């Protein structure tokens, strides 16, 4: 029962929701609404798993004094500070909302979270330039085609490209609209068929890794 019942549940719920797609009416609407309500509440109560993983990792690092354990203290202090700020703003002030710009929670978000996260991902600008200079070589016909297309698209999207050749944006649009669409469509169809096959395998119990079973 511990192994068979979950597989039966997955199959039954899967079939119900496949049928829900094809059969309109009151039952379909009721199912869609109830599912949405319940799944949202379930997500909130599953969230403690994430909290547990996060706290466990950092507290164990501090307790065992793992290398560079001091950074874990910084992480935990910042986490507690942000949670405190949020609850303080909602429960302890006259803020119109959690996102009220005059209060500390939104300020921490705007001036700490946003710049740090944005800058972290913006470092890729340097790496793409480095890769372009050192790795992108026209070793064969296919690579040459890739590079030529990339250069045309790069120039056609920016102001200097249009200044160099007035038709360049239209050429870029044509490449994106036709040959690029062809390639992307083939990939999309392949991915769609693969996804459908995986979904069927999970529903039929052939794929069981999500339950921790082989």
């Amino acid at each position, binding site marked *: 029962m511990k192994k068979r019942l979950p597989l039966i549940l997955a199959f039954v719920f899967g079939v119900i929701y496949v049928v829900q797609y094809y059969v309109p009416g009151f039952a379909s609407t009721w199912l869609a609404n109830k599912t949405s309500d319940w799944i949202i509440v379930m997500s*909130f109560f599953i969230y403690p798993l994430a909290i547990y993983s996060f706290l466990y990792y950092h507290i164990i690092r501090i307790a065992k004094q793992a290398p560079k354990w001091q950074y874990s203290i910084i992480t935990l202090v910042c986490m507690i500070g942000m949670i405190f700020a949020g609850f303080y703003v909602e429960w302890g002030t006259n803020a119109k909302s959690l996102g009220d710009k005059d209060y500390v929670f939104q300020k921490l978000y705007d*001036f700490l979270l946003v710049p740090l996260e944005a800058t972290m991902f913006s470092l890729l600008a340097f790496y793409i330039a480095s890769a372009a200079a050192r790795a992108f070589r026209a070793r064969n016909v296919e690579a040459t085609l890739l590079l030529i*297309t990339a250069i*045309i698209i790069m120039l056609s999207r920016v102001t200097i490209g249009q200044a160099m050749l007035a038709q360049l944006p239209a050429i870029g649009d044509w490449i994106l609209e036709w040959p690029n669409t062809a*390639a992307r469509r083939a990939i999309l169809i392949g991915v*769609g068929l693969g996804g459908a096959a995986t979904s069927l395998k999970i529903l039929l119990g052939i794929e069981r890794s999500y339950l921790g079973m082989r």
Partner: protein
Amino acid sequence: MNSVIAAVSHTTFKEVLQRMFPKVWPLKELSDQWWFVLAAIGTVAIVSYIYRENVMFRIAEHVLIGVAFGYSFTVMYFNVGQNNFVNPVFKEGDLWPIVPAVLGLMAVLRIVPKLSWVSRYPMAMLIGLSMGMALPRSLQSTVFAQVYGTTRIDFTGSISQGWPWGVLAVVGGAVLIVGTLSALMYFYFSMEHRGFVGGTAKVGIIFLMIGFGASFGYTVQARISLFAARVLFILRDWLGIIT
């Protein structure tokens, strides 16, 4: 209490600094100015990584992780927990949300080794539900609609646009059909790529390279934009060098 905290944090600190640095008094509210300085320090700390890994970067990285997690917890509670569980159950008296709450807590039992089997039931329901919802919808949007799109190219409408864009659109339509079929042939591995199949697959590779080239061209733009936005923040919002 709130007014005391506000008075001490904003007014007194501001007056002290105004007396200490009368000539360097910023035009913005002091509290806002310090927030911009904090953001700028964080930005420079992260960018310093491109020179080499250092303590400032590590501190900034761990601050980001802590703040991000704290933020997501807070939003999760107020947007979902309070609005969808606490208020309906405790203020409106609707007891139905208790059922998914119990199912969610069953899933959390995964962390207890002896009771982890209990978590399989709600996870199986969730996965079955998600797969059941995804299967017909993804087939419809990624397979059937795409095949339909390949067949609905309006050649006659394009011709009426004349030379050159009408003719180019007709050529484009033909390119789309040939390209889609040949690229699909490239991904078909159940037959050896020899003869007609091999030749078609080679044509497919050409289209795939054009697609990847277009993607690379756009990727360069994307990455540059992200850093340019940070530079705009430093130069305009913090230093005020540009408007």
